């Protein structure tokens, strides 16, 4: 399934993550220990915050021994938080000045929240009040930080480092599972790619069929065939006309032949008639019948009638 395997033995992917984790930790530690490092700790902002909560919890435990108002609790917590942040700011380790700015916001909001003397008892209302009072300033400060080239440069290095380790781990994982004769994500992806390619072929067929149905393709559609039939029918009619003309021509030829035949027959009749006329002439001379008139064609065609006249004359 896998495309070959490397000669070296499997590498435990956990080693890579461990290595990366150690490097990252060292990087952040360097920042926290004096801000001499090049990297910014994105979680640094929250550390004093968490510390302030711990301090507040301790104070609350102490206060719980007596009766204490919730508003007083808020104040105590707030003061504790400010104290923790102030301590963190004094320690340094904040190249972007986040802690100092945060402390500034907290102090500014202290006056806004507690000055009226109406600290809400409900913790959520208190938090919302605090958020409403601080969010604009906070958003501006954070916006300035994340839009700062120094921050982006550090974030970029972090992403590059993470990406490199991720890539190395991924390769290590691949080798590890390949050596264990197990299919990996890459193997599955390759199979899936083949299926997608196959689907693409089916898509093309589907498209071609659609084109045929939509009439976009160069194939004979019903309309084209109907039109072709019409054209064929017209051609057929023309052929019929030519054919009938030809047939007419044949009839004429036949008539001509027939006429010719008739003429020949007539010629023969005339010839026979001429012979007959000559014979009649000689007979008339003998019987003394006036036969000075030449036989008309009518008479010639009806020798019998002519004959009857002759006979009548003869009778007269």
């Amino acid at each position, binding site marked *: 399934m896998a495309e070959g395997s490397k000669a070296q033995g499997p590498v435990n992917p956990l080693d890579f993550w461990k290595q990366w984790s150690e490097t990252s930790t060292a990087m952040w530690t360097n920042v926290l220990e004096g801000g001499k490092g090049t990297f910014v700790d994105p979680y640094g902002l929250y550390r004093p915050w968490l510390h302030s909560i711990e301090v507040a919890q301790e104070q609350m435990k102490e206060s719980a021994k007596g009766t204490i108002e919730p508003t007083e609790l808020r104040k105590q917590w707030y003061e504790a938080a400010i104290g923790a942040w102030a301590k963190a700011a004094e320690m340094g380790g904040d190249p972007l000045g986040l802690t100092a700015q945060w402390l500034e916001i907290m102090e500014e909001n202290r006056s806004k929240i507690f000055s009226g003397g109406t600290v809400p008892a409900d913790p959520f209302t208190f938090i*919302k009040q605090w958020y409403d009072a601080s969010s604009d300033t*906070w*958003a501006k400060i954070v*916006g300035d930080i994340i839009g700062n080239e120094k921050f982006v*440069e550090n974030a970029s290095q972090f992403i590059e480092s993470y*990406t490199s380790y991720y890539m190395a781990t991924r390769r290590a994982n691949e080798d590890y599972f390949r050596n264990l004769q197990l299919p990996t994500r890459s193997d599955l*992806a390759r199979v*899936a790619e083949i299926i997608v390619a196959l689907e693409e072929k089916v898509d093309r067929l589907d*498209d071609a069929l659609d084109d045929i149905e939509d009439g976009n393709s160069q194939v004979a559609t019903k309309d084209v065939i109907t039109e072709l039939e019409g054209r064929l029918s017209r051609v057929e009619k023309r052929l019929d006309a030519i054919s009938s003309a030809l047939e007419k021509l044949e009839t004429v030829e036949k008539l001509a032949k027939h006429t010719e035949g008739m003429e020949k027959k007539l010629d023969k009749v005339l010839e026979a008639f001429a012979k007959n006329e000559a014979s009649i002439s000689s007979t008339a001379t003998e019987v003394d019948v006036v036969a000075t008139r030449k036989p008309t064609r009518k008479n010639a065609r009806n020798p019998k009638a002519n004959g009857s006249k002759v006979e009548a004359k003869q009778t007269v």
Partner: protein
Amino acid sequence: MTSENDTQLDIESNLKKYEAGLQIIVEGARADTGQTPKEIIWTKNKAKLYHYEPTVEKKYPVPILLVYALINRPYVLDLMPGNSLVEYLVNHGFDVFMLDWGIPGDEDSNLTFENYVLDYMPRAVKKVLRTAHAEEFTLLGYCMGGTMAAMYTALFPGKPLRNLILMTAPIDFTAENTGLYGLWTNEKYLNPDHMAAAFGNIPGDLVDTGNRLAKPVTNYVGSYVTMWDRILQGKPMDTWLAMNKWVNDGIPFPGAAFRQWIREFYQQNKLVKGEIRLRGMRVDLSAINCAVLNIAGKKDHICTLPQAEATMNLISSEDKEFFVLDSGHVGLLTGSDAKKSLWPKILSWLELRSK
């Protein structure tokens, strides 16, 4: 005695509210989104083409095809009943379709804008025309989907495309116009090739984090302050839950397309220069000559106003309008302001151009 009972009830009620809030934080927001009835009429790889079932008689012969970005999910266009652009258009007699790119898998890490704009979109358009029995259509692109829609229009101008609507569509990626993204994606600080090589597809969480970091206080704190406020005051949570679900529902960005997006668009700003080439075909925005409605939000930090406005000088259309709203990237599309401003605007603009 009554007072004690009231106090007891108050405590119980508040406890239930806190429980509800904590449940959302721990389990994530749950909401039924994308509920407008629809049918899948075509699929390709992970992509699906939806056809929304008409609720009234079709009034306009020109159908609308919605195209969303490659990141996040497209159901923001059909967020929930009563808060859905899709539902609004369907209820006004439009034939509406939506192209959902789906969730890419490892096998899709090589998909590029060539695949999406030249293979997927033209085929989807064919299916839309075929299903709607139409000869023309309107293309509506949102966010990166708008950029893709503009590229498609530039490559296939004229029929069958009749109208183009660009909603918060980044076109000009000049560093001064792109705000924080310009800095973060600067080639000095971001190597998209390296990231794509490492991850294959860029994880959705990573993309989401980048987007949320642009307004960290609002996204990481303000949103949850609003949640608690609504819960404790007993206000409806539907919209908040749907939006929160969408915000946290990022999908992987195909590696090859991510490389193009960062390198060619953000770092080299090739689109406005006419230097984007898809399979050798130059994407020349001046080829766009259909009717164009270009929408942008004054408070949009993802597609800033100048990024969208630049389109107006790059296209050749005579019928073009730049419509600006006093909203952010998503607020422009959903919520009460959208119902009063954006949706009626799209409707009135389309009514005149869909007959």
